[in-house]
């Protein structure tokens, strides 16, 4: 952690672009385009920021250990990872939801065992416990839709934005679990030792988000 720059952990890809868009609207002088490089650390001294680009699932880890002061993480990742961090703002970007899906022919009575495939074992287990159902979870790292098709599990738990992936693979949604958006997260120590810079960032972002809502 540098004393002057705020280190911001960001997921690579679409969320990064949307979050940068928000920061620009909040009048942070960020370059019009981040060059498509393989750089993992990008410094923007004019904005007082250093971005580190991580896998979405890893962003809360960097922030919890304090190697990043703040970060942008999906609520899905935060529920899954349960890190000791401040969840300060709902950025309302990358909106989607978690859902349970299966083949249309799914019949709970013919299940050998209630097997569920997911990239989110903790979130899935917690959800089904709250529903009063004991399930067996099979952890996958991607292409979750494959699981019911080839018979690895009857149901899957995954993130859904438009539902197109499910449809293309012939799956149907059984239940919606929870809405997901990206959150602005803060390390508990940075939240105090760099409170002036971080509070300013939170206020400016909150203003942009509130404006965005009114325009809808």
């Amino acid at each position: 952690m540098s004393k002057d720059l705020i280190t911001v952990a960001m997921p690579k890809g679409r969320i990064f672009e949307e979050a940068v868009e928000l920061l620009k609207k909040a009048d942070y002088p960020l370059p019009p385009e981040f060059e498509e490089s393989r750089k993992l650390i990008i410094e923007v001294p004019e904005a007082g920021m250093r971005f580190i680009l991580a896998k979405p699932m890893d962003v809360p880890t960097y922030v919890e250990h304090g190697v990043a002061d703040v970060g942008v993480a999906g609520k899905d990742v935060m529920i899954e990872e349960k890190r000791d961090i401040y969840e300060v703002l709902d950025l309302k970007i990358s909106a989607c939801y978690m859902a349970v899906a299966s083949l249309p022919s799914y019949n709970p009575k013919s299940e050998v065992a209630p097997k569920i495939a997911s990239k989110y074992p903790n979130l899935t287990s917690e959800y089904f416990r709250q529903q009063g159902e004991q399930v067996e979870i099979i952890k996958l790292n991607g292409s979750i839709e494959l699981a019911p098709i080839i018979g690895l599990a009857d149901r899957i738990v995954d993130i859904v934005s438009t539902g197109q992936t499910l449809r293309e693979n012939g799956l149907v949604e059984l239940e919606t679990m929870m809405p997901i958006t990206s959150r602005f997260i803060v390390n508990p120590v940075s939240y105090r030792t760099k409170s002036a810079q971080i509070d300013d960032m939170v206020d400016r972002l909150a203003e942009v988000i509130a404006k965005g809502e009114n325009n809808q």
Partner: protein
Amino acid sequence: MTKLFMFEKPLGMRDTLPELYQLKRQVKQAISTEVSQWGYEPIETPTLEFYETVGTASAILDQQLFKLLDQQGNTLVLRPDMTAPIARIAASTLNKEDRPLRLTYDAPVFRAQQREGGRPAEFEQVGVELIGDQSNSADAEVISLMMASLERSGVQSYQIAIGHIGFVNALLKEVLGNDARTDHFRRYLYEKNYVGFRKEVEQLPLSSIDKRRLYDLLRLKGGPEVIEKARQLVESKEGQAALDQLEQLISVLDTYELADQMMIDLNLVMHMSYYTGTVFEAYSEGLGYPVGSGGRYDQLLDQFDHHEPATGFGLRLDRLTEAIGKEKDALLKDTCLIFSHDRRKEAMEKAKELRGTGQSVVMQELTGVQNVDAYSAQFQDVIYYVGTNGNGGASQ
């Protein structure tokens, strides 16, 4: 289970190698000296305690306890903190002693880590407990002592956040009406989930003024002016009393000239039920976790059938050492005397003389070391007593 390799240790267990050990010892001694100069008396308690007593009384989550069975089948725990064992002693063996008690400890505590590395499962804590004094001065003393200890430990930049659970509870209860809801919303603060807190407030059937009071609670962080803002939010006697306490505390800390390193944070909720009044945490710049924490815990001794107010702090030696280590360059060892057999006596005399001045001196016979240049590079000073220059080098 797979066969263990000889070098493996249980998750979270760490070795302390000489370089780090030396730094850790310096830090520990600095803090212990400060604390004992404030009149706190050191005590020791056993590593193993009963789960039913100290285990359940401790502020540490159940899943973080190391548990084992004794031969009678009782569940034991490796002590997860030092406050609960000291409360046990204060409530039993020392319950007739004159109050207030001022006790200090320096001991390893144990907290099981399940997820991953990066956190130790055993680490040393240095701290104090001030038992039997409910006054505001006791809280002020404990906080100032923690700051004085940090100062003495050599950590360059640190900061303290001070909050008050009494205020949080009073405000929540005043707006929300009952204990169950108060608990529910306090949990959001404990889990640091401001988004969830706001979303749920939004849905409550409350007046917009009351909602605003709850939203404003999340912003009560900063200098002494925060107390004034907080006064606008709370009406109840308990709430105002908590703020009076905090205000007094700040003025006492001012007299200790410690106001610069301190901020008020009325959202600080470190535990769901353990603390009852003032709470505080210490941070060092450049380290992502708090280096110490403490607060008033007036109900803990009740768990040992003895009602008494108490307050204290604990500093984490592992994190403090890490914070200081990041600021310091590697230490060179003092002096090495490299001698040949013939000149041992000379070398011994020199060593004795230097050790008398407080230096550490390694005596190394030349034939016992393979690469003299590499070996001697670890030392600030190297003195050679080799060969025979007739200078008193008598042979056997």
